[in-house]
């Protein structure tokens, strides 16, 4: 990469600015906001399932111009601070951009990406409740799961040709795509995701967990641990997006927190079929072809 970091940051920010949201959320937002009495919780439920809208709302609410006294880490918190009408208007202006197409020049499967993000988010929240209660906020862990791979969708939009090669290379080598990203692009999706989150002044714990979710050497922290374990379980259950499925013998994630028996951790998730079904119902509807 010959461009300087601020130039790249600026260009990436513009890409995200123009990036449309997912079909189901755009359709639902347009539908429910026709009714002046649409319920706030319905709106929050939709925004929280869309990484693009969530990212953009958090960007606005954490912006330097507003400089709220606290960092905002959830859509519910955004509603408390800015009011539901403002959040509704932000969501509508994002919905007005259009619908993220399921096909792109990179050949990146948007639907699988969303499925992986949503299951990772739901698992991370539940893992936090069981294994990290009081150390991290379950809602924050959900957001970390939802946004952890955002860098990939930025690559697909920003540099589709290189990302196409990345996907081909990782399919060939059966290695996680961040290896090929580093090799062919010079930076991986964790760096790009963290760069954006940092530029937009997201809470440091969220930036760190996005940055380090593929770094086994990263220091153990509650949110990092929950995100990495959720990511792993999502892959194990076959929702791994571009990453290869979980293999026996992978570096275990903080055994002090989770123990060494992965099956027990999966069991602790509770009704995971319900979480998967919810994610599936959101990803499948209305995909444009």
């Amino acid at each position, binding site marked *: 990469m010959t461009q300087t970091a601020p130039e790249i940051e600026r260009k990436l920010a513009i890409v995200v600015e123009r990036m449309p949201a997912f079909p189901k959320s755009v359709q639902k937002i347009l539908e429910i906001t026709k009714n002046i009495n649409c319920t706030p*919780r319905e709106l929050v439920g939709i925004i929280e399932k869309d990484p693009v809208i969530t990212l953009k709302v958090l960007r*606005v*609410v954490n912006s330097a111009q*507003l400089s*709220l006294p606290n960092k905002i880490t959830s859509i519910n918190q955004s509603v*408390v601070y800015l009011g539901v009408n*403002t959040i509704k208007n932000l969501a509508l*202006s994002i919905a007005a951009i259009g619908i993220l197409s399921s096909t792109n020049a990179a050949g990146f499967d948007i639907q699988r990406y969303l499925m992986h993000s949503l299951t990772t988010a739901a698992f991370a929240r539940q893992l936090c409740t069981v294994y990290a209660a009081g150390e991290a906020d379950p809602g924050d862990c959900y957001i970390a799961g939802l946004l952890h791979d955002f860098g990939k969708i930025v690559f697909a939009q920003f540099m589709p040709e290189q990302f196409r090669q990345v996907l081909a290379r990782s399919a060939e080598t059966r290695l996680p795509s961040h290896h090929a990203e580093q090799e062919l692009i010079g930076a991986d999706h964790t760096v790009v995701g963290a760069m954006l989150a940092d530029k937009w002044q997201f809470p440091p714990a969220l930036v760190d967990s996005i940055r380090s979710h593929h770094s086994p050497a990263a220091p153990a922290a509650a949110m990092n641990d929950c995100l990495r374990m959720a990511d792993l379980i999502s892959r194990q259950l076959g929702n791994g997006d571009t990453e290869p499925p979980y293999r026996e013998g992978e570096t275990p994630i903080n055994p002090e927190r989770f123990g060494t028996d992965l099956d027990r951790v999966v069991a602790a998730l509770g009704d995971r079929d319900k979480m998967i079904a919810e994610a599936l119902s959101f990803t499948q509807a209305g995909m444009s072809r």
Partner: protein
Amino acid sequence: MKVRFWGVRGSIPSPGPKTIRYGGNTTCIEVRSDAGELIILDGGTGIFALAQSLLAELPISATVFITHTHWDHIQGLPFFTPLYIPGNSLRLCGAHDVVTGTGIEQVMSVQLQYSYFPVREAEMHARIEYQTLRVGATVAVGDARVTNTILNHPVINLGYRIDCNGKSVFFTGDHEPYFNIYEPGDEDYAEYQTLIEGKQRTIDEAVAGCDVLIADCSFTTAEYPAKRGWGHGTFAASIELARRCGVKQLVCTHHEPTRSDDELERIFAEALAQCRLGPADPSVILAREGLEIAI
């Protein structure tokens, strides 16, 4: 400090025989610090009468704090006569608008579009300065300090606390007490409750110990359920806030435009009776145009 009310009506000006005692102009409050610094809270249509009164003391230097940019709080600004007279200076302070991504300067430019108003900003000869406020920031105005707090309304609404030599007044602008958007039993109910309780504590701290609280009391308790989410308060909620925060005097404002003077007095009396105010409670009065309070 001195506080004088120039506009007490919500939503739309409502002049006429039925509103003659309390007045029909929309929100505008003049505050004078001990040293005579001029602070104006909101620029609703009441600001025009204030402007006329200021013509006797030109040149003026005024600091206007806009709670939020809905029409009834800004519509009088282009009619603030001192803006057209060289030698005057005006500092306009308000919040960043997250939906348009613009600062408080848009409050004037939006209104001065040629199709809607014949004069351009360049033709206003006073010195005009815009200051987009950081949430929670304190602005010094001579011997007074003005601190904002983000409240709850469909657009960002800043409440302002003015402190001067140990005396204080807080104006909410438009504010609806927080309510939980989830039902008890919903997964997110408890989390949301914690969030709004935390936010309410911040507001209580900002209002704590004020001599005068000027608060949005648009609705009665009976009217409120049909208006939930509109961003306005009730008499009962404002009285409760004043009690909780040890306020000495509560001034109820933002009267509904359809409310006649007689009706306003009737519902006010009912609200007071329902709240059973005791001797230790704040005094509670209705805002009316021309009301002046010395603190």
